[in-house]
């Protein structure tokens, strides 16, 4: 026990003396939340659009008023002819142009149908897609209103309800992702680096000739990062609840429990990497390439895994972050209980045991 406390004290000295790293470790989650929360959002607000209204009747003006009223669009210019469309896009600021044909009001009144053309700048496909969706929704709204006024006999009206995330906030998606990413980075990379550093410095050898059990050395290394990670989870959750207004719908103890499980998996992975490498650079490189990229790409956080080709979907199953991401989404956003995440928890536990056994085995081979 005495040995153990000496060790842990030493590890904390290492961490606190290295101010820059400490700042990165504790500041990173905050910065990521801020970046993802305010800069990297899929929502498009106040997109600049132009209008070519050839009809200029009551109906078209009413429709355009709806656009003007929405917070998604700013009508910047009124065009007067088709020839202006191309140059208007080329000037670069417009995202979309609404074209209303001259017969719009007339046709709507007498034929009960009319056409509106939406031309979007698809050089950024995501924005173009989002904007045309918003625009369609506004047009639908408008249509719904005028049909009500006229009382047509047969209409089907689709009503949407966005379950779990009524405002369609991007934050609901990336808060769990940032949690997985930060934990992996802090636990896996930092543990791997700090253990390999002892090897590089020759201090590991001193540990091994001392009566300290190797397992103690390793556990003592992991403890400070476990503590730091818990601090990080708490700061991410506080930021997401109070700044991004993403609620925690499920049980907080359950969320913390599964997070600690994921931390342990990450620590075990870091251990495995440290047992397999001899220099800090290699350890860092492996952590980044083999873990960080798959976490971002294959956990479902940036790109939906369901749409990936079969081989990638298979590979994604061995990425621990994928399971953790699913768990956090289920517990935090959907408010589900333990019974609905048993499979994922079992998989993570299996991974933990596997990584630990591998790491211990590797470690022993090196000592022989």
């Amino acid at each position, binding site marked *: 026990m005495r040995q153990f406390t000496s060790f842990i004290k030493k590890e904390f000295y290492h961490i606190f003396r290295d101010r820059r790293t400490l700042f990165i470790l504790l500041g990173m989650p905050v910065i990521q939340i801020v970046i993802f929360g305010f800069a990297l959002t899929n929502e498009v607000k106040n997109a600049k659009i132009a209008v070519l209204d050839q009809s200029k009747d009551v109906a078209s003006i009413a429709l355009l008023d709806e656009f003007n009223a929405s917070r998604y669009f700013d009508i910047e210019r009124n065009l007067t002819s088709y020839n202006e469309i191309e140059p208007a896009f080329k000037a670069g600021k417009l995202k979309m142009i609404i074209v209303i044909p001259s017969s719009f009001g007339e046709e709507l009144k007498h034929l009960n149908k009319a056409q509106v053309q939406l031309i979007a700048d698809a050089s950024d496909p995501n924005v173009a897609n989002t904007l045309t969706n918003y625009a369609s929704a506004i047009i639908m709204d408008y249509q719904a209103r005028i049909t009500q006024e006229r009382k047509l006999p047969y209409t089907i009206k689709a009503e949407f309800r966005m379950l779990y995330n009524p405002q369609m906030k991007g934050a609901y998606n990336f808060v769990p992702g940032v949690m997985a990413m930060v934990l992996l980075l802090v636990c896996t990379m930092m543990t791997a680096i700090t253990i390999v550093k002892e090897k590089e410095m020759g201090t590991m050898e*001193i540990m091994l*000739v001392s009566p300290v059990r190797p397992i103690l050395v390793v556990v003592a290394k992991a403890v400070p990062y476990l503590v730091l990670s818990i601090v990080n989870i708490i700061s991410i959750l506080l930021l997401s609840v109070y700044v991004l207004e993403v609620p925690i719908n499920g049980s907080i103890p359950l969320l913390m429990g599964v997070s600690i499980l994921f931390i342990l998996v990450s620590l075990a992975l870091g251990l495995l990497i440290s047992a397999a490498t001899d220099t800090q650079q290699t350890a860092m490189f492996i952590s980044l390439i083999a873990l960080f990229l798959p976490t971002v790409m294959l956990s479902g956080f940036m790109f939906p895994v369901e749409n990936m080709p079969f081989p990638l979907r298979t590979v994604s199953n061995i990425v621990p972050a994928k399971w953790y991401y699913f768990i956090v989404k289920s517990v935090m956003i959907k408010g589900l209980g333990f019974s609905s995440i048993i499979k994922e928890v079992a998989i993570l536990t299996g991974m933990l045991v596997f990584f630990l056994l591998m790491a211990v085995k590797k470690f022993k081979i090196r000592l*022989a």
Partner: protein
Amino acid sequence: MTKGTVIQAEGLTKQFGDFIAVDHISFEVKKGEIFGFLGANGAGKTTAMRMLCGLSMPTSGKATVAGFDVYKENEAIKRSIGYMSQKFSLYEDLTVKENMRFYGGIYGKSDAFIKQKTAFILEHLKLEKEANLLVKSLPLGWKQKLAFSVAVFHEPEIVFLDEPTGGVDPVTRREFWSMIYEAADQGTTVFVTTHYMDEAEYCNRVSIMVDGRIEALDTTIALKKKYEADSMDEVFLKLARGAKRGE
């Protein structure tokens, strides 16, 4: 085992695949002795030392360290020895005091012991003023002396030094050796590998390893006489010339 023998090796061998790193070496080291373990790079010194420290399992042969068997009583050996490696081994981002407290702690020493021993060493090395400085701010020579003090901090029976004076200037090397003498005077057995032949002269007895085997083992005076040499350097060259293994 004769009385006062602290290290005894008999036919100790380590094989990595086809390569015999250490080939049936046998020797004894007595209590309080400074035993020089010489050899060119790749002769097998470090491997032999690692077996004695319990870092590596021998392939065959027998050995006891401080009366404990290297195969079975690994843990007991670890408690009886100190070790200083050729790589510098203090924590640079810890202060002088913190390093000592840490090493004392991993050997399970009490706070009182650590406090008293730290004060003693600091006074002895005249480092009282630097006690709370980070180790990285000290000159190399001091770090080396400090590393030795830390290796014998828990008062081990035997201390293993693996090329302890690499990269240190001659004055510091001399001071370093006077520390080794002090330790030996207090009854600590010193097992030291080196390839500085002038350092070999400081040892009570030396063994010279060539290609995994011990080719010579005696006091320096006896060796010089036997090989008709003026210095250990000459003795070493005569023996090492036959070496087949390169760097």
